[in-house]
């Protein structure tokens, strides 16, 4: 058990190293000049001397390999560096923004998992019937709809036309933090979370449907039918556990896509989470923050996959590869 854990951690460390080197190489070779991005429209007012001060403040005058090693050295000592665009320590920025994003991503993740699985089971059990056709058609439509487009549609229908949902942000306008209640937060969370879940729901539906169809045609279900099992009981006792594996693997494996989707969803709804911070950091060539976010999401995705593997093994003992060694 301990050696397995050590192996996993070793692999994670290698993965992190590879991600860090690759991201850094991509960023320093990007044509975007961080000083030009920072200066922006003030380009006429700032002279070469002032630019030199900016370069000095950010330590950009060292050669790239040296900058990387400095960053790595600091990282080993637990210092993730200082974000250029937000003018504060990278860990603080990620911590703050992730807390905001966590609620959004968790809600979207649960929604897409539960809704997707339930719909997939219904579609699989009612294979070929009207319910199946409607659900499958709906899933294909969602699978081909881009996040930002769904987000904009929802924004204009529910926020502008119907005035049911707020147009922006994670908190109400003009209200002191102490007076913001959980209901306010949920009110601001609903549309972005629905947008984000809508896109993740389609694969879960389609894969679950396929698994349910296969299970319904299997010998053990035929045997159960022969013994008189019918309807909901049959589905709950004989099908759900067998059909859950793909949905679980997909859900835990899709954390990366969830994060990618949140970048777009947060942009549309002015929701100030990690996704929006990533956009800002990328546009400003904020290398320390981008590296921090890249490492953070790597850990997140890796952990998601590892948990997915374990849960899968519990649900379906055949998938526990440790038994086969």
């Amino acid at each position, binding site marked *: 058990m301990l050696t397995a854990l050590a192996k996993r951690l070793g692999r994670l460390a290698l993965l992190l190293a590879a991600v860090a080197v690759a991201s850094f190489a991509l960023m320093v070779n990007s*044509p*975007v*000049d961080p000083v*030009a991005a*920072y*200066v922006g*429209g*003030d*380009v*006429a*007012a*700032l*002279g*070469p*001397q*002032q*630019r030199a*001060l*900016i*370069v*000095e*403040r*950010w330590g950009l005058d060292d050669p790239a390999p040296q900058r990387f090693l400095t960053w790595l050295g600091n990282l080993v000592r637990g210092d993730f560096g200082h974000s250029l*665009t*937000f*003018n*504060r320590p990278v860990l603080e920025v990620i911590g*703050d923004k992730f807390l905001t994003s966590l609620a959004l991503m968790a809600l979207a993740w649960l929604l897409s998992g539960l809704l997707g699985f339930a719909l997939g089971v219904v579609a699989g059990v009612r294979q070929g019937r009207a319910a199946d056709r409607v659900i499958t058609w709906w899933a294909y439509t969602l699978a081909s709809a881009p996040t*930002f*487009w769904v987000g*904009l*549609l929802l*924004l*204009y229908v529910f*926020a*502008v*036309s119907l*005035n049911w949902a707020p*147009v*922006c*942000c*994670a*908190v109400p*306008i*003009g209200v*002191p*933090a102490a007076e913001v209640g959980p209901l306010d937060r949920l009110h601001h969370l609903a549309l972005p979370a629905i947008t984000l879940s809508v896109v993740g729901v389609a694969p879960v539906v389609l894969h679950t449907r396929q698994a349910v169809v296969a299970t319904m045609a299997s010998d053990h279900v035929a045997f159960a039918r022969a013994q008189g099992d019918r309807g909901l009981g049959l589905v709950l006792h004989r099908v759900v556990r067998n059909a859950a594996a793909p949905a679980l693997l997909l859900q835990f494996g899709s954390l990366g896509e969830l994060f990618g989707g949140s970048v777009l969803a947060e*942009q549309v*709804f*002015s929701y*100030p989470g990690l996704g*929006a*911070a990533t956009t*800002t950091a990328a546009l400003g060539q904020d290398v320390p923050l981008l590296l921090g976010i890249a490492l953070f999401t790597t850990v997140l995705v890796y952990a998601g996959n590892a948990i997915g593997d374990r849960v899968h093994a519990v649900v379906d003992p055949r998938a526990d590869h440790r038994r086969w060694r």
Partner: protein
Amino acid sequence: MVRGFTRSAAVLSAAAVVAAGCTGGADGAAGPAPTELRLAIGGESEEGYDPTLGWGRYGAPLFQSTLLTRDADLGIANDLATNHSVSSDGLVWTVDIRTDAEFTDGTPLTARDVAYTFTTAARSGGLTDVTALKEAVAVDDDTVELRLTAPQSTFVNRLVSLGIVPQHAHGPDYARKPVGSGPFVLEQWDEGQQLIVRRNDGYYGAKPAFERVVFVFTGEDATLAAARSGQVDVAALPSSLAGSPVPGMELVRVTSVDNRGIMFPYAPDTGRKSAAGHPIGNAVTSDKAVRQAVNAALDRRALVDGVLAGFGSPATGPVDGLPWHEPASAVPDNDPDRARQLLESAGWTDADGDGTRERGGVRAEFTLLYPAGDSLRQGLALAVADMLEPVGVAVTAKGESWEVIRTRMHADAVLFGWGSHDPTEMFNLHHSALAGTELWNPGFYASAEVDAHLDAAMAATDPEQATAHWKAAQHDGRGNGFGPAADAAWAWLVNLEHTYFVDSCLDVGEPGVEPHGHGWPITSGIVGWRWKC
């Protein structure tokens, strides 16, 4: 594509809102005037509110106060300062400050804080350039001497824009917990969402009429949505979204020096390369006759009406409407005949009859670059190409990224946008010593007379003298100047109007001419805003 969709969706949903009978802008419609003001004008300062890093360089720094201020006519007035003078060599600025100003933590603001602020800003790698400062010294409690490395008449703009920070409370977390002597105090900042400020009742100046002001940092679409649903009192929107009215709000059009113009490569094409290895020079635009012909042929009024939907004005130079603008530098436009005549007499003729003139084997054609994501500049570039075709000059409008434009800008014409209350910009765009530095003087424009006027303006110790030289650099009446009437280094096209939807009950006074940058500059008069119903 995304943008196009959101625009049309905005229009559709706007129609839906009107059809549903919703009335926005409910604030102030009934009952006593609210004490809270909500603005959606963008411009969040992501790195916080530290003036030594550039906070407050547009509009009001809100939390801090400045030594000097500009009135609506851009004249200089005292704020913290009671008097200021410049030594005859232009190297020492002596400023007397008022003694009744206090920081919000109760400590008095002294000359030492002023000296500390300027010294810190001069050394910090932020967005305010105080590198001309050699040292700042507090002579006594209420007098400070700012000693410069070289005379700089435009240093007055640092006195206008740099908010004074308290020496005792200025540290790494100052940007998020600003302490100042300005009209407002920071109450709460939800990063990426909103900034809530409260009135500073201990402020020494005229107090704002609002107890709280909320700045909402929404994108264009969310801003429009917020305005339509009556959630904000002032909304800064691009003029492309200002076409349809918002119920309960009035459209306020503010003139600006936020201009767009064509920068011509001025040097001939001799195969020269810049220090960074980018080509310099253009065989067509280096001819004064071509540049003057372009200036004469363009119909700027049509550009304003067609591309800006009327939200703007024709531009004659980089500083239209500012005190140092020289009207004589302008030329009459929309005159294709004069353009043809200029080109003919310079030897540009269409011998092969293909519609484009030639001279000595060189076709009268050039590429006009614009930033690819900017639909406004794209519209201008295409319209310019259409206007120049009939006079026999072929223009290819091409959208590129800024990274590519930076490599091509010494050899191809570029559609730039500028506009500042600081004439340093005019200096940087036209002085030959700055050719090829950053985005300044990208065309390698060079005129000894213009350089002399720009240098004299910069070195002047008397503001009126400086203004006279700034004017002469545009046109000196003896055939010199970078303006269209002489060297025509640029063809300035339009000045934008900044459009704001303002609650019908809110009086924002007469906003002055705004610089490049739409949104935050309108706050410079916020202390004078009033509810009128």
